[in-house]
């Protein structure tokens, strides 16, 4: 099972949109896919119409006292299951801190599921904390959405330095530009100024598009409710790039 995490220290940059759409595309390719909504706000769970509730809460789950298989929920997309969010995840940092090997707990939760899934996608909360360190340790690929600006590029580089310094099992880190508005000069300049050969930034950018924003109304990934839209096509391209990187 390959593990991909969508991560950014900031909120509202397109992590959940990327996670749900990429997971939906993976399942459509026949990959047995799991999406773990780690964000206590539960946006991914909401999009899939699944109650953001985990029996026993985050504490029992992280401590290995829950049967994780019993917590899974099938989504409306065949081949895609969800490990839902829970409001108690807001205290996950504390729970992890109290545990042995506090940076490897999330990986341990996922391991019993490895034989059942080809891909797990983790939708992470915005922060830099023990939860994110766990995600860095667990993930094969860290997918980082960036709204184009000079500062976000700098933050991305800092993330790479942090992971290099602090994480034992370094994931492949790849960014992509998210919510790109081609009418804005700053967005155009940042995206176009990147050198072609840069492998840590995906070739595909996700546009700021109405149909992507409408996911909250439709309560489904854009690749499902508007598969021919600009946003859906961009996610399909991003998935193709990611799939190649993951060798899936």
């Amino acid at each position: 099972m390959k593990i991909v995490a969508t991560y950014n220290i900031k909120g509202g940059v397109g992590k959940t949109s990327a996670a749900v759409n990429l997971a939906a595309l993976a399942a459509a390719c026949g990959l047995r896919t799991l999406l773990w909504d780690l964000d206590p706000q539960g946006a991914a769970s909401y999009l899939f119409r699944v109650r953001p509730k985990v029996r026993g809460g985050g504490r029992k789950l992280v401590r290995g006292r829950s049967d994780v298989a019993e917590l899974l929920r099938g989504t409306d997309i065949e081949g895609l299951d969800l490990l839902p969010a829970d409001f108690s995840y807001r205290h996950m940092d504390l729970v992890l801190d109290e545990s042995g090997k506090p940076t490897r707990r999330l990986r341990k939760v996922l391991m019993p599921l490895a034989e059942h899934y080809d891909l797990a996608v983790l939708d992470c909360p915005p922060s830099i904390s023990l939860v994110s360190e766990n995600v860095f340790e667990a993930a094969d690929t860290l997918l980082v959405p960036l709204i184009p600006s000079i500062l976000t590029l700098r933050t991305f580089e800092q993330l790479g330095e942090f992971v290099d310094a602090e994480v034992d099992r370094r994931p492949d880190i790849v960014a992509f530009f998210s919510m790109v508005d081609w009418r804005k000069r700053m967005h155009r300049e940042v995206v176009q100024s990147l050198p072609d050969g840069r492998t840590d930034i995906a070739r595909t950018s996700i546009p700021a598009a109405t149909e992507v924003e409408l996911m909250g109304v439709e309560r489904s990934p854009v690749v499902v409710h508007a598969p021919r839209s600009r946003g859906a096509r961009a996610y399909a391209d991003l998935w193709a790039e990611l799939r190649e990187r993951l060798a899936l």
Partner: protein
Amino acid sequence: MPLEVPSHSLALPDGVDPQALVSFLGERFDVVVEPVTSVSYTVVDTADRRLRGAGADLTVDGGRSGPTLVLREQAGAAPLSTDAGRRKRWLIGDLPEGALRDRLAPVVEMRALMPLARVQADVQPLRVCNREAKTVVRMRVATHAALVTGADPVPLSPRLEVTGVLGYPKPLARVLGVLSTEVGLVDAPGSMADEAIAASGGDPEGIRTKVRIALRPDQRTDKAALAVLRDLAGMVEVNLPGTLDDLDTEFLHDLRVAVRRSRSVLRELKGAFPPEKLKVQRDALTWVQAVTGPTRDLDVQLLDWDHLLAEVPASRHAALTPVRTLLDRHRAAALRALRRDLRSAAYRDAWRSYRTFLGSGLGPARDRPDAKRPIAEVAGRRIRKVYARMVDMGSAIDGASPAAELHDLRKRGKELRYLLELFGGLWPTDVVKPMVRSLKGLQDVLGTHQDREVQADHLRALADELAGQAGGPDALLALGVLVDQLDAEQRAARAGFAERFAAFAARDQRKVVTGTFRP
């Protein structure tokens, strides 16, 4: 940790109209009705239905981009698909690399995937939703017909397929409860693929290798033997076309096993048959075994090729290409000879004569001392004797014994194994099963010992031919590595013999055999 989603295929009883059922479901549940789709597909499996055994469905579906192989393994999981190409059958190596091939490879192994039935279906998908408008149960009302060449479509029983969604067991139970109590639906007796194969004239169980004849201990030996031999003859016949068409290596393998078992029955129960007729038929079967042997030997060599190559340094692989080419050429020549023999008038006449022998009575019982004796007595006596003989032979084998002695023991072991497989059902399973297990353990090492000997001899015999070819000297050097590898595996098998034989011939085991198979 099980993650399986329950799935039920329910048969619609006569008089239940599929559309009326859809309306009923709409009244009872919050149902989303999706558009009807008409599809035609081909059911694909190996001749022995390995995918059916593994709970998977493989079909070839038509599409704009050409025929596509689609694998459905588990309810609730998305199907896997890959380009099917234009083929009459697929070996694993014919499939494009990817997830579908990876999933199929360990199940299918060396067998060919073949079209077994064509189906036309109208499918009406339905989804039962909860208050959040989330799907909690999936259903498909399907009407099917088998498409048979040169005949009208054969309607198959309409079905309702009901599949749960992971984490939502209660809605599924509710739906199934209503369908059972209010509509009277019950689980369909077999799968749609099975029904389509049967309607197309095939056997849904696929080609089998196990004899399924219910014998009684007091049954006359000649009658019991004939029943078993007729079943085995059917296996020879059913595997013959696939052998001649060379669909995969296992048709020939299974044909030869059926012939060998038949010879074994004729030899071990010879007292039930008239001696002069027996000799003719045994000679005929021996001839079939002989003319099919070279192709099978080469099949074993080629099936083991990747395993052998894995033990040779990668830098030598290219040098072995001429060896592989030569083996392929020899196999093609052996197959041509096999086809010539099995398509000959001599074979047809011999087989007709054998079938007559099995079907038209064996004549007066006075020349056949075991004919009227109970099968349990005669087969039990043979099991006891062959076992005792094997114990004697094996006990005489030591580190200095020639390979031929191990081979002779193996041949006896095959006799015992066939006796146990064909007639073991007459005795308690808790005696026969452990005996078969310890025998199999012994036969495995003896088989490896013999196979490696034959393979090494065969490779050594290629040396002269290779020497004259381009790349010959390099190939000869690499061939030496292969032969060394085979010799090492043969030595390892021999080293394992003592332990396996000790288990087979243990005092407790000997007591059980004597006690169980006594007259």
